[in-house]
């Protein structure tokens, strides 16, 4: 019996941390894969509204995004606080022409057979008025881009209330 006691004595054995890097790397790769990098700078503030009847935008390459909102603090001295439209990384001044050009530029990156499936995602701030949104919609109709998606976040409260 004295034999066993001897083993337990002295310092407690250390936990091996040799596999820690592997675990961290696994997490790292997970986040690297799911990360969507924001391309370009966002110049308008956008907090999208909440809704319940949402559909997922499947193919990222077939989606182009139009931002509508008030300029961020940095740009308010130049562009004021009125809601503005951001296309790519520029403010748009002449909606009809700019949106048509924006859509054409996006089409260049897409296979011609898939042009019919292109969706324009409108990410508009919840507090902008419909006037500017309507202007964007009209411009899109004129450019014959009819599939659009009003970006929104799921309204968890309402969704739970329904079930």
């Amino acid at each position, binding site marked *: 019996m004295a034999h066993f006691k001897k083993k337990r004595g002295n310092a407690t054995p250390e936990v091996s941390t040799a596999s820690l890097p592997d675990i961290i790397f696994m997490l790292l790769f997970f*986040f690297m894969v*799911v990360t969507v990098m924001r391309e370009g700078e966002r110049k308008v503030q956008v907090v999208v509204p909440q809704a319940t009847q*949402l559909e997922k935008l499947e193919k990222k390459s077939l*989606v182009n995004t139009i931002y*509508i909102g008030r300029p961020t603090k940095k740009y308010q001295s130049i562009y004021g606080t009125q809601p503005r439209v951001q296309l790519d990384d520029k403010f748009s001044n002449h909606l009809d022409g700019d949106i048509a050009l924006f859509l054409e530029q996006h089409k260049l990156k897409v296979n011609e057979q898939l042009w019919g499936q292109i969706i324009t995602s409108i990410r508009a701030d919840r507090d*902008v008025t*419909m006037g500017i949104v309507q202007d964007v919609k009209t411009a899109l109709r004129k450019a014959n881009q*009819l599939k659009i998606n009003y970006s929104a976040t799921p309204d968890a409260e309402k969704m739970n209330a329904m079930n």
Partner: protein
Amino acid sequence: MARDKKSAPEVNAGSMADIAFLLLIFFLVTTTIDADKGITVKLPPWSEEPPDPTKLNERNVFSVLVNANDQLLVRDEPADINNLRERAKEFIANPQGREDLAATPTKAIISLKNDRGTTYKAYLNVYNELKAAYDELWDEESQRMYGVPYSDALTTDQKNAIKKKIPFVLSEAEPTSFGDED
């Protein structure tokens, strides 16, 4: 000499975890997991001339107006957003066969009109409720016909069959220019 030793000296991998942690934290911060979601809408094609004022049977039109103060007018009466969905459903399906609601779901037209001063939030809220009315009706129809809710489990043909029975007709009028910001 030391170089002539049999085994090469090991590289210290102790800091590997720190480097990995650093990268991990960077990606954690920049990640936005939620994919883009939203309400998908199909716009009508653009035409220069205004649409001709076709005379519609009044019972088949469910007019919804959202004004610049985000107040709701449904069929010329003030209404509450909370029962808009129920009312729209009743209007489309008309289960009791009432005289003042849509004759058949295929004839039902929902007409949505807003001011330029309406907030986007209020507009989308109303749109969401109207869409929800159709989604729920499709769900019920799907349960009746195929015994499953309206989802991706259905084939395209089955979906089209349901949509033919209850077509989504939502016409948006040009907004009036009340209360715009500029």
